[in-house]
C-alpha cells in the first residue's frame, strides 16, 4: 500500500471515529442538572423540593425536552407541524422524544436508568408511585396550589387530588394529567343483537351470558375476545370486566390493612366464571395469545360481537373500521352489568417534571398550565394544528370514498396525514375526558362523533377510579415472580388445565412466601 494512501485512510478512519463519538456524546444540557443533583434525601423529599418555589416571577425556560408516548401526535400524523405551532404559541423551544408507543415503558425505564433525564416525561400510572419515591419526579404540589390554573376554577380537582401521594415514604403531587384516566366499556354489535332477536343489551350477568350463548348459537363462533385473560397493568381486569366483576388480583388496602386480592373469594369466583365460559366456547379460544391488534382485527372482521375496549374516541374508531370492512358499524356501549356495578377508570398516565429539570417552576407554568389553558394551546393539544388537522374554512373534505361539504366557520377535522381514508381523530387530549372546562366553549365539540360521545357518557357516569398501584422495595424485588405466577395460573385455570383450587394451591406453593413478604412490608 502506498504511504500516501495509508495516511489518507488512517486520517479518514480517525476522523470518522472522532465525529461519531462526538455525535454519540453530544447533548444539550441547557435545561438539565447532573444526576447527582437529583438524589433523594433520607426524608423522602427531593433536592428540588418546591416548598420555596411558588414565586410569581417564574423564569420562562428557553427549551424543554419532553419524552412522550404515542398518545401525543406522532411523526406520521404531523408532529413537526404540531411542534412548530406549539413552539410559536408558547414562545419556547420544545424538543420531543417519542419512542414507539408499545415499548414506551421499557424505553422510559432505560432512559431513567441511563441518568440523562428529559425535563418532562409521561409516566404510566403503574410506575408513578415508584418513580416518585425514588426521587425521579419533582413535587409540584406548591406549583399547583399557587397556580393560575387552579385559581381559574375550571379544573375538576378530583382528578388532581387522586394523584397526591401521602404515605410514610413520601408526600406530594408528582404528576398531573390533562385527562381522566379513561377506561374500557363493553361494546356490543347492534347487528348481532338484531340477528339474535335481542332487543336490549344485558343488565345482569345471567342476561350477559345468555346473550353470549345466543351469539354463539346464531353466529356459530365465540362471542367475546380479549388480549390476554388478565392484564399485567392496573386495573388488570378491564378487558373482561363482566367475568371479573368485583375481583381485584393485586395488593390493595381493605379496612386499613393491605391484602392480596388474588387469593380472595371474589377472584376464585371470577376464575370459575371465566373457566365455565371458556369451556363453553363463549370466549375466544386464542385469547391467551391474542394481542390487542389481533382482537381489533377480529372484531372488524366480524369474528365476534362483544368487545370491551376504550371509551370515547375509540368507539368511533371501532365503528368506522367496521364500516371500512363492509360491516354494519353500529355498536352499543353497554352500561356495567349489576354484578360489576361500575367500570374501572384506570389511573391516568401522568405528565411529570423530573428532578433533573433546571427550572421546574418555569416548565410547570409554561408547559403544564398552558396545556389546559382552555383556549389556543389546549386546542393544539386536543385537535392539532389548524389547516393541518382541522379547519373552519368552507371546503369539501374527502377521505377515502367519502366526502362532506363544510360552511365557512364550521369546525371540521381534516383527513389524517397517516391514513387519508380516515379523518384525524385527536391529539393527546381526548376532549370527552378532559379534566377542565374551556374558557369559551370547546371549538370542536360538534365534530365529536355521536358514538364517541355516548360511549364517553356511559363510561363517565358509570366508573370509579382504580386504586393507585402500591410499590416499595420488597414489591419491586418480588413483583416479577408474583405476576408471572398469577398470569400463568389465570391462563391455566381458564383454559381448563387445572381447577380453581389447584390454581390457588399452586399460587401458595410457588409465591406464597414472596406474597407474605410483600404484605408484611406494606402492613408494617
Amino acid at each position, binding site marked *: 500500500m502506498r504511504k500516501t494512501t495509508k495516511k489518507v*485512510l488512517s486520517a479518514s478512519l480517525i476522523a470518522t471515529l472522532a465525529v461519531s*463519538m462526538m455525535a454519540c456524546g453530544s447533548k444539550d444540557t441547557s435545561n438539565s442538572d447532573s444526576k447527582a443533583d437529583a438524589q*433523594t434525601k433520607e426524608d423522602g423529599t427531593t433536592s428540588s423540593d418546591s416548598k420555596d418555589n411558588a414565586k410569581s416571577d417564574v423564569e420562562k425556560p428557553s427549551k424543554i425536552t419532553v419524552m412522550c408516548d404515542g398518545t401525543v401526535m406522532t411523526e406520521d400524523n404531523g408532529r413537526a407541524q404540531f411542534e412548530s405551532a406549539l413552539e410559536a404559541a408558547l414562545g419556547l423551544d420544545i424538543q420531543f422524544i417519542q419512542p414507539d408507543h408499545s415499548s414506551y*415503558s421499557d424505553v422510559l425505564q432505560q432512559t431513567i436508568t441511563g441518568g440523562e433525564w428529559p425535563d418532562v416525561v409521561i409516566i404510566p400510572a403503574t410506575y408513578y408511585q415508584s*418513580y416518585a419515591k425514588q426521587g425521579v419526579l419533582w413535587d409540584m404540589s406548591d406549583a399547583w396550589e399557587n397556580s393560575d390554573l387552579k385559581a381559574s376554577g375550571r379544573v375538576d380537582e378530583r382528578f388532581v387530588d387522586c394523584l397526591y401521594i401521602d404515605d410514610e415514604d413520601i408526600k406530594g403531587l408528582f404528576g398531573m394529567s390533562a385527562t381522566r384516566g379513561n377506561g374500557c366499556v363493553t361494546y356490543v354489535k347492534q347487528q348481532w343483537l338484531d340477528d339474535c332477536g335481542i332487543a336490549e343489551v344485558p343488565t345482569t350477568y345471567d342476561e350477559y351470558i345468555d346473550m353470549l350463548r345466543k351469539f354463539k348459537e346464531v353466529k356459530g363462533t365465540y362471542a367475546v375476545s380479549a388480549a390476554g385473560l388478565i392484564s399485567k397493568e392496573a386495573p388488570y381486569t378491564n378487558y373482561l370486566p363482566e367475568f371479573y366483576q368485583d375481583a381485584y388480583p393485586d395488593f390493595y388496602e381493605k379496612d386499613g390493612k393491605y391484602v392480596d386480592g388474588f387469593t380472595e373469594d371474589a377472584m376464585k369466583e371470577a376464575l370459575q366464571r371465566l373457566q365455565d365460559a371458556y369451556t363453553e366456547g363463549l370466549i375466544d379460544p386464542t385469547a391467551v*395469545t391474542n394481542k390487542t391488534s389481533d382482537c381489533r382485527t377480529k372484531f372488524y372482521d366480524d369474528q365476534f360481537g362483544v368487545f370491551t375496549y376504550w371509551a370515547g374516541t375509540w368507539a368511533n374508531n371501532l365503528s368506522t373500521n367496521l364500516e371500512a370492512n363492509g360491516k354494519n358499524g353500529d355498536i352499543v356501549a353497554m352500561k356495567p352489568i349489576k354484578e360489576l356495578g361500575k367500570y374501572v377508570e384506570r389511573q391516568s398516565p401522568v405528565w411529570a417534571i423530573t428532578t433533573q429539570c433546571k427550572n421546574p417552576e418555569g416548565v410547570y407554568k409554561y408547559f403544564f398550565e398552558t396545556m389546559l389553558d382552555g383556549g389556543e394551546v389546549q386546542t393544539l393539544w386536543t385537535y392539532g394544528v389548524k389547516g393541518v388537522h382541522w379547519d373552519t374554512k368552507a371546503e369539501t373534505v374527502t377521505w377515502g370514498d367519502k366526502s362532506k361539504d363544510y360552511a365557512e366557520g364550521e369546525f371540521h377535522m381534516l383527513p389524517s396525514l397517516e391514513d387519508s381514508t380516515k379523518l384525524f381523530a385527536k391529539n393527546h387530549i381526548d376532549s370527552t375526558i378532559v379534566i377542565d372546562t374551556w374558557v369559551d366553549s370547546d371549538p370542536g365539540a360538534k365534530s365529536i362523533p355521536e358514538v364517541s360521545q355516548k360511549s364517553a357518557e356511559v363510561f363517565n357516569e358509570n366508573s370509579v377510579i382504580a386504586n393507585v398501584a402500591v410499590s416499595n422495595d420488597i414489591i419491586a424485588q418480588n413483583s416479577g*415472580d408474583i405476576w408471572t405466577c398469577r398470569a400463568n395460573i389465570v*391462563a391455566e385455570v381458564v383454559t381448563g388445565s387445572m381447577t380453581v383450587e389447584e390454581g390457588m394451591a399452586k399460587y401458595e406453593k410457588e409465591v406464597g412466601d414472596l406474597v407474605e413478604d410483600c404484605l408484611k412490608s406494606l402492613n408494617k
Partner: protein
Amino acid sequence: MSKKKKNQVSSKPLSARIYNHRWFYLMFLPVLVFIIVNNYLPMLGLRYAWYNYNGVKEPVFVGWDNFAKMFSKAGFWRAFYNTLQLSIIKLILNTFAAVIISILLNEMVNLAFKKFTQTLIYLPHFMSWVVTASVFGLILAPTDQGLVNTILKAIGVVDGTAESPYIYFLGSKTWWRPVYYVINLWKDTGWGTIIFMATLAGISPELYEAAQIDGAGRWQRMKYITLPSLANTIITVLILNLAKVMNLFESVFVLMNDIVVEQSDVLATYIYSQTFNSGTIPNFGYTTAVGLARSVVGCFLVLVCNYASKKTRGKGIV
C-alpha cells in the same frame, strides 16, 4: 524478501517496529477504540451484580445476596433448565435436519430444481421472528381459521366440539415444545445447509467414480464417502453452536405465553420479565446477577467446546 532480511526486521525494537508500521496501527486504532467502548466498557456494569441498584438511587453493596436469592428461586432454575433443554434439542435437530437436506440436495440431478429448492428453503431464515410467530399463530390457531386444525378436522382427528376440541398448539403444555422445534426447523434448517453443501461440493468426484466402478450403489456411496466426509463439519458445527446455547431469546420470546411459561421461560426471557414486567422499578442488581450467571455458563461451554474441538479437529475455536 530473504530469510536474513526478515530476521533483521523482527529483531528491531518494538517501538521501532510500531513506528515503522505506524499508519497501519493508526488505521487499527478506531477499531480498537470502538471495541473497548462498546464491548469492554459495558462490562463494568457487571459490578452491579453485587449491589442492590434500581438505576436511580446510589447502588447499595449487598455482597452475594443477589446470587443467593437467584439460586433459591424456582423461576431461575426452571429458566436455566429450559434454556439448556430447548437450545440443545434445537441444535441437534437443526444440525441433523440440515445434514439430511444437504445430502438430498446434493443428490439432485436437475440443477434448476436444485437451485429453486435451495432458494425456497433459505428464505424463511430472512423472515423476522415476529412475523414468523404471527404466521404460525394463524396456521396453528385452534379455530376453523387455523390451517392445521382444519386439516385435523378433515381427517377426523378432532371435530372442534367440547368433546374433541381443536388443539391449541401454542397454548398447550404438551405441544408447545414440539411446535417450537418444528418452527425452528422450518426457519433455520435451510440456512444451516449452506456449510454442509460447501463441504459436499469439496468431495472429489473421483472418489464416487472409483466407488461406482467397484460396484458401490447410491446408498453405499453415501455411507462410505459422503457421510465420513461430512463428519468433521458436523462436529465443527455442533461445537461452534454449542457455545451459543445460552443466547436463546427472540424465538422463545415471540412464541411464549402465560399458559406455557413453565415450558418456555428461558434465562433471557426470565431476565426480561424480571426487568420489564415487574410493574415497578426493578432491582437491576438481581437481573445483572442472573445475566452474569448466564454469561459464566456460556463461557464455560465455550471452553468445553474449545477443548472438544482441539481433541477432534486438532485445533481450537478460540
